[in-house]
């Protein structure tokens, strides 16, 4: 069943509440949780962009490496070529998109499981290049002392982006704009074609859809936004190294996406938010640092057993339940008419 796209009154109230929460949240949490909030918001962009790529039915293991391409690109543009950081970030994201374009030619000769393995191999090649070439990539230690986002000083207001609360607002704006673009892409004809290729690729091709081009487009768009997330990450931490973008990190992205669900745009967001809160806030706060991986694994198993359609299925059920209750409250005449 197609998703409802128009926003009703309840939806508007929900958006308003969400906006208030997003603006207020840095002031409601501790200093260390502000740091987490920045990383979490960046990760939201990573998983949502990853979902866009999965719309064509191809699951890549190179997405985190694409994030790394953006991070390395942006770091080098800023540090070695003297680009202003905001421009370097965009250039880093474009670099990731260009690399994805090049990788598309060999990768999209494959499908399904073969594409998965191929994307892993391509990602590893890229990651090993960063590790192998100390100049310019810094080798295993990576690039350090990457310039941060420039401070804004207007006399009456001074914004230091090293402060996690300030950087959070910057990241939030970038991520919200990116999510809006990704949402519009999915709801456009291009997005519908992605879905068509996913479910009926031969049929799509028979009516003139160039499946290769659309798969490539999804990969490039997803990589561009992953690269943008990587750029935000690099200029926040002031360091990038190849280990940050290894297959372990990719496994986390897969887990967040799968636990959240991929049939709705908000599914991966639910996954990354819920699992980050569980792992980084709840499990740490109860002082079980050393058994966190064990408990995290247990929670994942339970989630997969009891929520096979992801956390988004809870939202769908809750919405259906509310609609059902709403139906019971409609005037008698209307209820009868429906019957």
């Amino acid at each position, binding site marked *: 069943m197609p998703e409802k796209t128009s926003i009703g009154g309840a939806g508007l109230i929900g958006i308003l509440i969400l906006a208030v929460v997003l603006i207020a949240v840095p002031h409601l949490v501790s200093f260390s949780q502000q*740091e987490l909030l920045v990383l979490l918001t960046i990760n939201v962009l990573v998983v949502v962009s990853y979902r866009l790529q999965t719309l064509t039915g191809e699951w890549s293991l190179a997405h985190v490496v694409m994030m790394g391409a953006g991070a390395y690109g942006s770091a080098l543009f800023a540090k070695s070529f003297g680009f202003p950081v905001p421009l370097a970030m965009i250039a880093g994201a474009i670099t990731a998109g260009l690399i994805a374009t090049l990788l598309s030619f060999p990768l999209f000769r494959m499908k399904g499981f073969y594409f998965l393995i191929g994307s892993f191999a391509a990602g590893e090649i890229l990651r090993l290049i960063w590790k192998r070439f100390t100049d310019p990539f*810094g080798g295993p230690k990576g690039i*350090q002392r990457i310039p941060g986002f420039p401070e804004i000083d207007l006399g009456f207001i001074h914004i230091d982006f090293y402060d996690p609360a300030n950087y959070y607002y910057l990241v939030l704006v970038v991520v919200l704009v990116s999510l809006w673009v990704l949402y519009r892409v999915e709801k456009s004809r291009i997005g519908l074609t992605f879905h068509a290729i996913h479910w009926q690729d031969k049929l799509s091709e028979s009516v003139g859809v160039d499946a290769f081009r659309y798969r490539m487009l999804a990969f490039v768009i997803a990589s561009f936004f992953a690269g943008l997330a990587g750029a935000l990450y690099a200029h926040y931490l002031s360091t990038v190294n190849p280990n940050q973008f290894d297959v372990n990190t990719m496994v986390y992205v897969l887990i967040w996406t799968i636990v959240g669900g991929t049939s709705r745009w908000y599914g991966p967001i639910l996954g990354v938010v819920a699992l980050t809160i569980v792992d980084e806030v709840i499990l740490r706060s*109860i002082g079980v640092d050393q058994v*966190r991986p064990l408990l995290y694994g247990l929670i994942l198993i339970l989630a997969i057993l009891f929520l096979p359609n992801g956390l988004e299925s809870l939202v769908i059920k809750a919405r259906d339940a509310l609609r059902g209750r709403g139906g019971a409250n409609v005037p008698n005449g209307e209820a009868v008419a429906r019957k």
Partner: protein
Amino acid sequence: MKSASSISLTRRSLLTGAASAALLPLVGMPKASFAQENVVKVGFLAPLTGPVAAWGKPGLDGCKIWADWVNEAGGIEIGGKPYKVELASYDDEDDAGKARTGATQLIRENDVKFIMMLGGNSWPGVEEIAARQGMMVSTLLPSDLTPDTTTLIAPCEVHPIYNVTGVDWLAANHPDLKTAVVCAQDDALGKPSVATYLAAFEAAGITMASPPLFFDPATTDFAPVMTQLLANNPDILCLDTCYADYVQPLCEQAFQQGYKGKIISCTLDFYQRIVERTSKEFMEGVIFQFPDFDDKALNDPRINFKKPNEFFAEYVKRYGATEWSAVSWEYSSILDLWADAAQRAGSVEPADVLVAMKEGGKGKHAFGDARWWGKELFGIDNALVGDWPVVVIRDGKATIAEFRSIPDWWDKNGQLLVKHMTDLGQMWNQRT
């Protein structure tokens, strides 16, 4: 009042009890008798989970013993007042992002006065916050040091420079061994260590049978790695500073492939397990750099680590003999230095303690008096360097063979080390 016999355990009361117990740490237990005391908090920011946990968690375990002993003895006296020492730990998972979050929590929420780190991948995430907050931080990896890291010190382990003592001892005691091979994971820990071993072998007149072999840290099958290493029949097999997860399978592979030469390694964590999986005979004579602290050689008067044998016994009692690792004592020895400096400074403030610690350019390292050094290699004299033990497996047990001087080796062969560090891009001014 209900009689004892009338109290029944229902499912509801059981669940309520369990939930209450689980929430206790969140809501906080009443602080019993320390409310009126002065407390100084020290941060522990290292990997407690993940592949590098072997160089974090055993250190935290050792620090708990150190803190318990100090507090049982009435705390440390600073400025005429006794201070209880509390540890605040954060698992940084060897990741810069988590380390930044952890440092923020330790500094801004836990109000620690000193942070101990493993360093390496995690340090860049902490560097700026440490500089901005003027926080003194220690690392086990002096390759983190640069002229800009003025509040970062390497007061215990000058990794990998102490590895020269093992090679130096090997060359002096086994002059017949003439060729060597070395392997390491291709990362920030492996490369400077390889440079150090190459310099030490060259200084000792030992030639390399093949170029250094760097394997990917994701490697799980070490059979081909070992086959390649042994192809030229080396006299010495050097395992560099491989992580514990690599040293064990590498030793097993060397055993299975019939290697008969000498093995030298930086660490040999949980070596009892390796002895079990190979044999006492195979492991006899393996050289590394980290002693068990039940070694009687550590009772020498020049050793500054307090009660090493008792420390080891307590560690084994609490956590088991097989849990002892290279770092079990290191963070505790850093705490010794810090406590001594804080007492001399009469303050717990990081800047005061740092000045007191580096006063006169000398310090009391765990293995004897040492000097603050490192300008030629790290651009700053923030590494405490002196003697270091050479440890040999004898009859399945780690035994200190001799203490050797790192500064003496450096004075004679420093240029070789600079040359190899430069070749592998490991000098501080080569880091991007």
